[in-house]
């Protein structure tokens, strides 16, 4: 038997969905429409005059090698952040799941970094690796390794990945732990009685049963790496050196609000919008098929 509620008339259902529709309109459709509209113009910074340029902003962008490089940077960055934070989150969750004493304390401490805002996390890591006063850079120097993320792109990339993944590990840990605890102990015990080793059990029972959560986290983490890491990048590198840590969303900001090129910035938002749309479709269409529920 299906549970369904039927409403008589149309005004009650309309009233009930109105808040959601209103919010979607105000916070999604209206700004997106504005971005699309603005991407067709070339305004001056003060908004005193503007010129219709058609698709010129897109042409300008796609002929800019630094914009194209920013795609690559974004892929490297978001893959590294998602994979490293999920792998570490799973590892810590597997360990915490086996704890008998003091589980609550460990879990609380492991979740803690999630409470720290990205910008503050960025400043924290920046302090540790600061060329003048940083502890980490000091010890690295003592070991004979020259640390200067203001100049070396790969070091800067490493640092923003580290700072972005750090808080994220807690988030992933939380979900993986809940997932692990939801797996019936009897299945694991049955496998153990049949003689399956820990790794065998982990690989053939735990991982498949965790796959819905893993898939969910993958989507959420990629979205996070795409959009929410702005604070970390802004505080640590501002996209430098030589744009080596300028991911797409940072470029939208720096071209729009630092360089005051609002036309180009709007065009980038539109491209980003399309990109995320495609990515979501791919994830749900192809990866979700491999997920067991």
């Amino acid at each position, binding site marked *: 038997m299906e549970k369904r509620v039927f409403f008589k008339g149309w005004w009650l259902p309309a009233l009930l969905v109105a808040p959601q529709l209103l919010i979607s309109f105000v916070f999604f459709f209206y700004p997106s429409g504005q971005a699309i509209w603005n991407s067709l113009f070339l305004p001056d910074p003060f908004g005193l005059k503007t010129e219709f340029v058609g698709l010129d902003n897109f042409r300008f962008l796609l002929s800019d090698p630094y914009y194209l490089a920013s795609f690559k940077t974004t892929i490297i960055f978001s893959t590294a952040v998602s994979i490293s934070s999920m792998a570490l989150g799973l590892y810590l969750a597997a360990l915490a799941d086996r704890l008998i004493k003091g589980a609550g304390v460990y879990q609380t401490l492991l979740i803690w970094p999630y409470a720290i805002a990205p910008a503050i996390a960025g400043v924290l890591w920046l302090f540790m690796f600061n060329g003048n006063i940083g502890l980490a850079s000091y010890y690295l120097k003592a070991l004979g390794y020259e640390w200067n993320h203001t100049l070396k792109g790969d070091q800067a990339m490493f640092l923003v990945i580290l700072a972005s993944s750090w808080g994220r590990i807690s988030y992933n840990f939380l979900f993986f732990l809940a997932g692990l605890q939801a797996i019936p102990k009897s299945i694991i015990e049955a496998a153990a009685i049949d003689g399956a080793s820990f790794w065998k059990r982990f690989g053939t029972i735990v991982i498949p049963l965790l796959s819905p959560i893993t898939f969910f986290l993958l989507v959420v983490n990629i979205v996070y790496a795409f959009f929410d890491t702005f604070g970390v990048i802004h505080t640590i590198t501002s996209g430098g*050196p030589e744009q080596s840590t300028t991911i797409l969303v940072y470029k939208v900001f720096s071209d729009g609000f630092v*360089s005051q090129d609002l036309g180009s910035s709007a065009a980038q938002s539109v491209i980003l919008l399309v990109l995320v749309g495609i990515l979501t479709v791919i994830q749900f269409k192809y990866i979700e098929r491999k997920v067991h529920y």
Partner: protein
Amino acid sequence: MKKIKAIIASLALFAMFAGTSAQAKVEIQWWHAFGGRLGELLDEQVNKFNASQNKYTVVHTRKGNYSETLNAGIAAFRAGQHPNILMVFEVGTASLMAAKGAYVPMYQLMKDAGQRFNPNGFVSAVSGYYTTTDGKMLSMPYNSSTPVLWVNKDLMKKAGLDPEMDLSTWKRVGNALDAAKAKGIDMPFCTCWHSWVHLENFSAYHNIPFATKSNGFAGLDTELAFNSPVHIKHIQTLGKWAQEGKFKYMGRRNEAGKNFRAGECMLMTESSAGYAGIKKEAKFEFGIRHLPYYGATEAPQNTIIGGSSLWALSGKSKEENKATAAFLAFLSKTDIQAKWHQDTGYLGVTTAAAKATKKSGFYKSNPGTDLAGIQMMRNKVTQNSKGLRLGSFDQIRGIIDEEMEGVYNGTKTAQVALDSAVKRGNVLLRRFERANK
């Protein structure tokens, strides 16, 4: 319940009084970019003005660094929430000039307010930057500086060098760095504001164009020209020093100043306005020298300014504009200017202030503080040494910084980097030209 009523009544009373006092005085907003020691000195100026009369109140707010302040001002203007006075650094000058209607030109503001104001009182090398080609002053010069070479004399001695040795050319500087490196000095050379010192001022100093059309003064159709052999030679030298560990890159803005003040860096190229901080913090003997040049050219031309001017933004009431005019006129007074010049190391932007400072014997008791002024005004300016007027220049500086980082970390040659910076910068100049036709 009684209590709540009492609170409401007292709040209402308070609001009434607050309201009346605000009506009595005209309040104007000033957004600026100064923190630290400079922020304290700025606050002092504002307090002095507020105490000097009872008609107007100036409220100042720091909005971050120069770029952030400019961007905050522009964003606020679009939203109609802008301040009366906005501090704009020299790089943003062309952007504001092109935005006719966003500001009230200085000469107009003063005339409307009936304020006595003499644009000829300013040093022409400074005011020329903010004046149209037909001689109308658009904004008020506030702080102007020029790059000089800072010397840590204690480290020079440690390197076995004579702290008073001749450092007038880059070749001699190079020799000193070699000696310092050999003696194990960790940071022989560092610099602030890479593009400003090593390309923009470098061009003026060697009397070669940074951009065509008189560095942009003669038209929006200007093109960048800082990839000449002389430029390339200098940037390549810096790159070589970076690879050899003699020059340490600390960041794009004035991050290196921290290392110098802490006594780690031996020679630093930085604005003359580094003076305020260095004087306050340095626990070593320091010296000021002229910016070095390449001996191959004849004696150097002059350097150009950096720093900011104050723009009166449009769309404010007549009363508020009057207050703005009164405050800006106050800032240009000789005693205020002379004190600012002596405290900060910024140039005395009015001729009267420079004279007053000289008369007070300040230069004698603080050797080197007059060098910046001399260096700026040593020759009759040429079209290469008047300054820069380029649109989107903050962004272009960002591009230059990026490309120079490539040279310093050894992934690019100076030729490749500067060619690329010129090419990328020109694209932005064309975009700016198009948006401001």
